[in-house]
């Protein structure tokens, strides 16, 4: 055997390090589930042996490459031992049962604020266009309005509410709406970081457009039909928009007013809640996309549209806010 203490130290433990390296390579290759139970139990034991070897090597060995190797191995093992390793099905179930509704409930103040902004902007848009139809053009530019402007005939406006989109089929349309809306809501959320201001603008813009449309249709006696046309998917979609904005507000607020904690700590605490709520928003928008793209195009009866919209809203409210036992 060789002479140096550090050589003997290495020779005695080398096999364990190699074993740990092999197990980590297997686990990191996405095959953690394929590790035998015994192997999985082995990793923490080998990790602790490696980390104490690192501490000894730093104090007694002058082989720089050995210390660097042990540092890298211990770091990899640390992230595996203390990292996220729950299985996907279990954490998804937990998200739907607890994570999502809890996060939404925790955002109640921000949700109320976002709802108020949306409602005020809708009222403003409605009042402006109702009193002077010229406002319509500045709120909905020509491209967005798709011909639905004050110069259009009532017959045309009515037809828009009940027609089938030509060309592309319904499910394609639904998918398109979902991807578009999800993109916008993620943007609204991310903009919250810029001290909430751009998120307020985005929500207000949404409300103004809504109010202007309602005023235009209302002025032609089509208030009931436009309500149904919007309600069938709108209760879900607007709720999702409000929640996305609320999540953005939470983060922006934490950055402006961190309270006793540091800005970094306050922001990451807010992000835990906001992130869960946002993942839920994407799911709500899938539902809204299907309701708008498929449901609205096939269901032409106003009362049915209202009923579906109200039912969806009731469902979401019950899911988020009904008190329940928590484990």
């Amino acid at each position, binding site marked *: 055997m*060789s002479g140096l203490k550090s050589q003997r130290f290495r020779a005695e433990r080398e096999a364990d390090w190699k074993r740990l390296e092999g197990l980590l390579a297997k*686990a990191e290759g996405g095959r953690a589930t394929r590790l035998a139970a015994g192997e999985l139990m082995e990793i923490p034991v080998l990790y602790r042996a490696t980390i104490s070897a690192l501490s000894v090597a730093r*104090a007694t060995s*002058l082989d720089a490459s050995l210390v660097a190797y042990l540092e890298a191995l*211990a770091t990899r093992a640390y992230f595996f031992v203390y990292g996220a390793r729950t299985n996907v099905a279990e954490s998804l179930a937990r998200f739907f049962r607890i994570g999502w509704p809890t996060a939404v409930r925790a955002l109640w103040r921000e949700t109320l604020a976002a709802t108020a902004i949306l409602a005020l902007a809708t009222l403003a848009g409605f009042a402006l266009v109702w009193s002077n139809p010229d406002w319509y053009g500045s709120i909905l530019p020509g491209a967005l309005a798709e011909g639905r402007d004050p110069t259009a005939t009532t017959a045309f406006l009515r037809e828009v509410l009940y027609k089938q989109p030509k060309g*592309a089929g319904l499910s394609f349309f639904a998918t398109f709406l979902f991807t578009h809306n999800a993109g916008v809501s*993620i943007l609204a959320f991310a903009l919250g970081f810029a001290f909430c201001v751009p998120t307020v603008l985005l929500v207000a813009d949404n409300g103004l457009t809504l109010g202007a449309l309602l005023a235009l249709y209302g002025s032609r006696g089509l208030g009931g039909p436009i309500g149904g046309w919007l309600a069938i998917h709108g209760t879900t979609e607007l709720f999702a928009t409000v929640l996305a904005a609320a999540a953005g507000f939470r983060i922006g607020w934490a950055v402006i007013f961190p309270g006793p904690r540091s800005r970094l700590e306050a922001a*990451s605490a807010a992000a835990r809640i906001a992130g869960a709520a946002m993942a839920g928003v994407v799911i709500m928008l899938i539902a809204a996309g299907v309701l708008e793209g498929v449901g609205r195009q096939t269901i032409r009866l106003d009362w049915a549209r209202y009923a579906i919209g109200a039912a969806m809203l009731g469902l979401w409210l019950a899911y988020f806010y009904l008190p329940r036992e928590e484990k």
Partner: protein
Amino acid sequence: MVPTTAAVPAEPFVRRFITPEGIDLRLTLGSGGERAAAFLIDAAIMAASLVVLTLVIGVLAASVGLENAEPWGIVWLLGFFILRNGYFILFELTARAATPGKRALGLRVAARDGGRLTGEAVFVRNAMREIEIFLPAVFVLAGNAAGDPVDAWLVLLGCLWTGGLLFFPLFNRDRLRVGDFVAGTWVVKAPRRSLRIDLAERQDGAFSFSRQHLAAYGVKELQVLEGVLRAADARTMAAVAERIRGKIGWYRAEHETDAAFLTAYYGALRGRLEQRLLFGHRRRDKFDKA
């Protein structure tokens, strides 16, 4: 038992990171250049995947005719959506917590407080890319279209504002993106290193150094010598061997090679320094007289 993190001032990118066992792992943060390179690799992979996806679906859709192509349109839209919003999230949720670009550069995402990297944190840090990457891109593209002076000014201000978000990592010590800042994460180096041969194994008994011979150098020189031996460049070894022989007053024997001399001297010096280390004397370098 939550590990604590704090800056170690000596090296700019090394951070103290105490595990629950009480050992400092001395994490090294990814530098701005590495982060940018990793992102460019990921962006190239995403762009290439989009091209492939579009071509394959285009061919499939053409083969069934335009009337029956709707399912393929949906597959394309969803594929595009998942690629744009899911690429980073899905890769960072795996055990290695890194996208292919980060893996290529030996980086991974970690929670700054040393705890678990949660799904929410990964979701948030990547949702923030919307304002870091997408918004600046919109303003830059809008810059080309801006006609009248008011629009041009708006675009310029937009570029400044979003540019601040894009270059956020360069303005803080820990190279945090806006997403990292908000989600409580950072990007650290977690390279895979292999265990290399112990150079002290190689020595043979043909050399015998005296105490005076071994008193010339400290730990720093020993580790420089280790680097020279591992690189095994003949010219460097010849120069270093000459310097050491001169310094310690060693007369070169007839068949003595530079490699054999350096290896033997390395082994003997390490033995001497490690022995003193056990008695609590760590001789930092040749100027350290302790």
